[in-house]
């Protein structure tokens, strides 16, 4: 990232190849499996990474820095989603939940039902590859709390996963 900061933009491609899958899956679970939206979010992350490359500092942890960008994008998307939901409510558009028998979709649904703190640490750990210490730093909590949340998130998923199985 320091090379990118020093105007060697070709190095941004290396970072993209290294992190695109992790970020994509992170957004995929955040966006309830919406692939197109997740791909756009990944583009947004790298667009901002290049645009704001001069704000990156040597002492920064790149994974934490990129997660912060991803979280900001997701947060903005969430606000837009709320607005869209309000519009849909005005026009009385109703959506029905269709039961799924696919295991992946079931796990995704289970993830969606998880409390935010549990789902967040699970996604950060599993898909962004952040260590528990890094997650603790981001969430401003102890490593023990992060581990407990990860345990409970997996436990909840386990129930759904084995119920379907």
């Amino acid at each position, binding site marked *: 990232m320091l090379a990118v900061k020093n105007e060697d933009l070709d190095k941004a491609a290396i970072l993209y190849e290294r992190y*695109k899958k992790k970020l994509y899956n992170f957004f995929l679970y955040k966006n309830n499996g919406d692939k197109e939206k997740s*791909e756009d979010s990944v583009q947004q992350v790298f667009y901002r990474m290049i645009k704001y490359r001069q704000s990156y500092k040597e002492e920064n942890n790149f994974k934490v820095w990129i997660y912060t960008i991803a979280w900001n994008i997701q947060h903005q998307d969430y606000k837009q989603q709320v607005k869209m939901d309000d519009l849909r409510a005005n026009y009385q558009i109703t959506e029905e939940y269709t039961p799924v028998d696919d295991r992946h979709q079931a796990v995704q649904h289970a993830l969606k039902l998880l409390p935010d703190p549990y789902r967040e640490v699970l996604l950060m750990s599993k898909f962004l590859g952040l260590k528990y210490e890094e997650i603790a730093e981001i969430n401003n909590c102890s490593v023990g709390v992060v581990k*407990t949340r990860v345990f409970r998130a997996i436990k909840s998923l386990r129930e759904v996963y084995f119920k379907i199985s």
Partner: protein
Amino acid sequence: MKREEIEQLLADYASGEISAINRQRLEELFKQDAALKEEADKMATVWQSLNEMEQQPGAEADKQFYAMLQNAKADQRQAGRVVQLNVGWLKAAAAIAACIMAFVIGRYTVAPAEIVKYKMVVVKQPAVNIQQINKPETVIAKAHAGKQVTEETSNEGSPLARQLRSVFASERIDAVVKLSAKKNLNAADLKMLEMALSEDPNPNVRLMVVNSLRPLLSKQNVQQVLINSLDRQGDVMVQTSIVDMLVAAKSKQAIPQMITLLDNKNTDAMVQNKIKDGIETFLN
């Protein structure tokens, strides 16, 4: 061991990020509690199942990213060019500013060159001895003329010669009077008088010379002295006196000099009339 601590160990176990010490502790717990072992394995399975669920972004995403990267690089090059242009402009501005500063600093730090005014000072001096002016000729003349030359140059350092070079006109006039009082005026004396008549800046001195030569007017060499000095005179009184004397002596050799003086537009009308009358006298 507290339940909370066990949960953290299970989280480490499920994610595979468990240290060797913790793994050993957990395995000891598994030996005591088989259900715990089953729970941990199920959690690990779920964790692994998430791996299987991982997907790759589509090729379209890659295409969009690289297009975006190319745009960013193009912007970067353009920005670099703008900076380069700005730098070029700044260089030119800096050069101009440096020149102006150098001029201003130089203007106020270097002492201005002194303004030198040349003033022409004319010092009126008595006539210089002809031997001093034409020294080389005098030397040649010495070699060929022998005694006579020795006689001529012998008066060079005489008191009268020095007096004729005095800065005071009265002393020069006195010297002329003394020369004219001599019974036998030799060539050297005549030469000194000729020099005084031709070169002395004071007309009174020259008039005195003319007057001193009047008794010797019959001599050819005296007439020649007057003729030679005629075209050098600027004073009307001196010119008139010389013309009168040459006409009185009926010196025809003086006609060319008189005509020259007559043709000169600056010659005074009275002098011109004198010359005309004189030439008519010669012709009659």
